[in-house]
């Protein structure tokens, strides 16, 4: 059923296309075929743009035939989270309020991908406006985990993760506001990176929480993630918060895969009670493996990380309550209840009520509360101070160690429906990933095996100093190589949900 092509890495596909062993057109066809075959079970995509993908692939083949230089990922298909604007495809953010909206402009990430010759297969499912950890908050139904279709693929970038884990695409792009790349990567057995805040452009990324949102790569291998990272990153004058400094050498680091002499810090605050035993077991083994590969281990306390979740659930909803105010039925998107007698105010309220899902409304309400006069200092103001303290914890830790590690998530993929109406339980999925969002540090999740209690993937999170994203790839690549050697075959061969 699957051709070998869909199981190939992005690096191998790009090399094959560059060498003329493969055409971009056949690579695209193979993935469109795979989508056709499994999409009704996994539901990774909200929109598949087969025709545009074919045209983009033909353009790459023509470019090669003409002897023009190709980008490092030219002809490689990719699944783009539906939170980035695209002129030739709808952009819904998983929300009914944007159903059918076609933006008149491309996001910077979209443009960079196109310019690199990457073939956009379509737009992937997500929790509405990136709020959630399971894709169950999508207005268009949940995506499913290719390891077990009864379980969530994580979120909010769950559609991109499911597409890559389900071999519908070798690469996916997600966004990470509180863990929305790393957590789905962990529960789908993928590599998922959150670059340093500001290293990847937010222009054209429909904002959830502006000071936290970070676009990043999802892939099946560390090298593939690094190749995509390098294409995505770089200064963008259209984003004031974009960092104007050279992209760290992530691809070289992924190829180097050598951690001898590196000091690895273990954060005790990101462990212990509430963590699934199988997750902790695999994490502990991975840490031992790192030591055996030449790393020095050290426990480093980050005392304020325990307040990260609380601070995050004040800051992110506050920003989202303001960012989502523009969805008001006046200029684009859904409009409800405009019967000629109702006022603009009433039409706005009716549209927002019916166009937003429960979680989005919950967070808008929470943010409205946290910013209202009389509460600002006690909630939003205090959360911003906690943010400073968490940043200081990171800075102090990196004076002692080169990278920090923790489990990416407290548990493996949970069953669909289990946490839908229990927001606090859902929020716990981001417990370990949130600190790096609050501080802006780069972090990455890399698979560290299957949990012995349920046979589902476990992720190890690596965190590095700001703008030292290359260290993430160096450590991840070393661990990946060691685990692959020990196992003898790629981890995702064990994913049987779509078999």
């Amino acid at each position, binding site marked *: 059923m699957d051709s070998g092509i869909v199981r190939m890495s992005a690096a191998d596909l790009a090399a094959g296309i560059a060498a003329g062993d493969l055409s971009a057109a056949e690579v695209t066809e193979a993935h469109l075929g795979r989508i056709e075959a499994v999409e009704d079970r996994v539901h990774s995509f909200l929109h598949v743009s087969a025709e545009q993908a074919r045209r983009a692939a033909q353009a790459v083949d023509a470019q090669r035939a003409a002897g023009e230089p190709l980008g490092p990922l030219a002809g490689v298909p990719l699944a783009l989270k539906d939170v980035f604007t695209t002129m030739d495809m709808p952009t819904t953010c998983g929300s009914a309020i944007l159903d059918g909206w076609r933006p008149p402009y491309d996001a910077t990430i979209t443009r960079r991908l196109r310019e690199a010759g990457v073939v956009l297969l379509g737009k992937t499912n997500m929790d509405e406006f990136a709020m959630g950890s399971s894709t169950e908050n999508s207005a268009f139904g949940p995506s499913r985990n290719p390891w077990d279709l009864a379980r969530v693929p994580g979120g909010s970038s769950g559609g991109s993760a499911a597409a890559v884990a389900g071999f519908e695409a070798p690469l996916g792009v997600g966004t990470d506001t509180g863990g929305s790349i790393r957590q789905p990567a962990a529960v789908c057995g993928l590599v998922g990176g959150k670059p340093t805040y500001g290293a990847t452009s937010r222009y054209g990324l429909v904002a959830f929480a502006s000071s936290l949102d970070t676009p990043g790569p999802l892939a099946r291998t560390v090298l593939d993630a690094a190749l995509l990272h390098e294409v995505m990153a770089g200064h963008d004058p259209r984003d004031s*918060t974009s960092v104007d400094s050279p992209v760290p050498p992530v691809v070289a680091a992924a190829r180097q895969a050598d951690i001898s002499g590196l000091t690895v810090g273990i954060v005790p605050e990101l462990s212990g009670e509430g963590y699934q035993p199988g997750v902790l077991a695999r994490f502990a083994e991975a840490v031992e493996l790192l030591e055996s590969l030449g790393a020095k281990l050290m426990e480093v306390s980050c005392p304020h990380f325990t307040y990260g979740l*609380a601070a995050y659930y004040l800051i992110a909803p506050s920003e989202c309550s303001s960012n989502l105010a523009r969805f008001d039925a006046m200029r684009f998107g859904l409009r409800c209840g*405009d019967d000629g007698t109702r006022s603009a105010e009433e039409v706005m309220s009716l549209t*927002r009520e019916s166009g937003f899902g429960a979680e989005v409304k919950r967070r808008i309400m929470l943010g409205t509360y946290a910013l209202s006069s009389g509460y600002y200092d006690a909630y939003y103001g205090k959360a911003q*101070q906690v943010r400073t303290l968490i940043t200081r914890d990171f800075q102090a830790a990196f004076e002692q160690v080169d990278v920090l590690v923790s489990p990416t998530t407290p548990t493996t993929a949970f069953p669909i429906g289990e946490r839908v109406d229990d927001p606090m339980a859902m929020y716990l999925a981001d417990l370990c990933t949130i600190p790096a969002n609050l501080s*802006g540090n780069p972090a990455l999740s890399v698979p560290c095996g299957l949990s012995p209690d349920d046979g589902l993937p476990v992720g190890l999170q690596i965190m590095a100093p700001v703008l030292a994203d290359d260290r993430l790839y160096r450590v991840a690549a070393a661990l990946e190589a060691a685990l692959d050697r020990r196992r003898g075959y790629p981890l995702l061969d064990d994913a049987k949900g779509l078999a």
Partner: protein
Amino acid sequence: MPIAREDVAHLARLARLALADDELDHLAAQLDQIITAVARVQEVAADGIPPTSHSVPMQNVFRDDVTEPCLPAEAVLAAAPAAEQQRFRVPRILAEE
């Protein structure tokens, strides 16, 4: 200090959400639970700690005062729920501000 139903109704008006009655009750309970949990930030000893609003330590990021092409009017109005005279048609507006 539990959050009252009328407070939730007030927040919904501020946020332009026409919440149904049952939704108000349900949300009041959930918000109360979440607010209790996030109020943990108040336990932190943070006297004299400056707030962080941006994790990027940069300032003075400006643009030159140089014009760029605008969108064509058709593209601007293509997504409008209603348009008339090349303008966005919106329901009657109650009052200024």
